């Protein structure tokens, strides 16, 4: 079995702070990590490798520093790493991103494509299903567990708001995985040592056959019209009063702002 796992390097958003004076994001010094849902997806692939000897390729599209994350994936146990990097890919929204990645996947042989459900920097959850559509493959999203019958059928547990669903699908297919599906393994010491000597293939526009108009900023139907931080708001009023009066003030404000 051949598996391709699509992963993304993201800023650790839990580390992002707002500058209290300007209300802007402080991104300096914020560490980059492998997106948590993607890591859950990689773990599923590596478990299939442990059990069935699957071959695991990881692929990412991103700036040069994403190389670190690919080596982390190799150190965890991935067999092959591909880094899609080209100015023509830059500025892509989810549709253009999915066009590029689907283009790369068409060059590869696979039975299963895995993505994370969503990336923590954008939270869109769109690229996985969009890839599935471009490749005309069935999709299963919000995957919590996956069992393989050793032949061609996957039995999958899919999370829902009010429970779960068990579904069955044959290879080839696309799944999007939740980080809560498992606890991803650590890099092995030997893996870390070796990862820096392993090859990370760099793929550019020339490696995929997708029309340039479908890629990058050009291929993006959506644009950011404006962005803003909610801003560090001014502190409100503080009252030092007797409890009864305090309750009057609270109730008054709640009536003003809300329906009570």
């Amino acid at each position, binding site marked *: 079995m051949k598996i391709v796992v699509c992963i993304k390097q993201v800023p650790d958003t839990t580390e*992002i702070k707002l500058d209290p004076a300007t209300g802007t994001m402080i991104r300096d010094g914020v560490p980059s990590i492998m997106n948590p849902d993607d890591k859950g997806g990689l773990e599923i692939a590596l478990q299939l490798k442990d059990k069935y000897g699957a071959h695991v390729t990881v692929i990412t599209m991103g700036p040069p520093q994403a190389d670190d994350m690919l080596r982390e994936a190799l150190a965890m146990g991935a067999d092959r790493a591909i880094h899609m990097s080209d100015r023509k890919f830059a500025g892509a929204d989810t549709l253009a991103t999915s066009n590029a990645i689907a283009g790369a996947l068409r060059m590869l042989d696979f039975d299963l494509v895995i993505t994370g459900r969503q990336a923590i*920097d954008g939270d869109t959850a769109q690229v996985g299903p969009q890839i599935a559509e471009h490749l005309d493959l069935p999709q299963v999203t919000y995957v919590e567990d996956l069992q393989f019958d050793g032949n061609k059928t996957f039995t999958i547990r899919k999370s829902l708001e009010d*429970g779960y669903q068990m*579904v069955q699908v044959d290879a080839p297919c696309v799944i999007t995985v939740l980080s809560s599906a498992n606890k991803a393994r650590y890099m092995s010491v030997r893996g870390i040592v070796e990862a820096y000597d392993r090859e990370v293939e760099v793929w550019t526009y020339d490696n995929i056959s997708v029309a340039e108009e479908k890629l990058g900023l050009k291929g993006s139907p*959506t*644009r950011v019209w404006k962005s803003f931080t*909610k801003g560090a*708001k001014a502190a409100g009023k503080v009252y030092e009063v007797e*409890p009864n009066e305090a309750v009057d*003030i609270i109730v008054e404000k709640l009536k003003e702002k809300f329906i009570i």
Partner: protein
Amino acid sequence: MDKTQYKDVYVFVEQRDGVVQKVAVELLGKARELADALGERVVAMLLGHDISAKAEELIAYGADVVLCADERELAQYTTEPYAQAIAQIVRERKPSIVLIGATTIGRDLGPRLSARLETGLTADCTGLDISEERDLLMTRPAFGGNLMATIICKEHRPQMSTVRPGVMRAKEKDASRTGVVEKVDIHFDKSKFRVKVLETVKEQKNKIDITEAKVLVSGGRGVGNAEGFAMLGKLAETLGAEVSSSRAMVDAGVMPHDRQVGQTGKTVRPDLYFAMGISGAIQHLAGMEESGYIVAVNKDKYAPIFGVADLGIVGDVKKVVPLLTERLAALSKHNK
């Protein structure tokens, strides 16, 4: 693309087991506003099996037209039959805007459709508006909510958006509204139905998710103990709120970890957040400062929580909370 060909605001009406989901009604309310701003119609897409009876209700909630696709293949949601049905409707009728609830279903369906229709999709919107150029302005949080971005889809139609449940306001049901119900026949390509549902299991997910609560009553060291939290529980009940906690009270074993707000707990953005006896360590503030309106009660007037509170009360929570509970209970009785 000739954008003038595309008209009207379409809403995907999500139903589960024949029950129209709340988010669909919320979307109809928003769609009504957008359609009025454009001088166009609201069209509800009702997909399912034996669901025609729900159509009139959608008109009462703001739809001008209900397209009813009543097919056995649509009885239970799976990606492909639903994607085929909506893609067919969109190709035949050319809506300007398509709104979908950002549920596990909507977030499965939306991107599949956007790729099929080769148009833009903006995920998890919390604000929708019409620009002077009559484009849809779609506002959504990014970077874990640290940044807001307004997105447009200028040259492609339809403009598609998934919208967070609970954000838009549903309109009051108006039984006197009139509209048209139209049956739509879907032509399926069943060779593409490749995912088989074996079973759907409902679970009592009784773990309270404090990130979903609209109102949180949160307690810290000043609340002290389980008895103090029982007092907060009464206030929360009066407000239809959930109780959450600072790290101190979780570490002390008074509250479970899934109720913890802050850096090592959960990030919450309720409409209304009560910080009761919470001093406001930076790790706590990081988890709640984006709340819509923050009321803080603390004995220490220099407590950092007052730096982010919209309304601060210097005082003893054990005195203020019972009084407040009593007053709010009396008010709600009065309103009934």
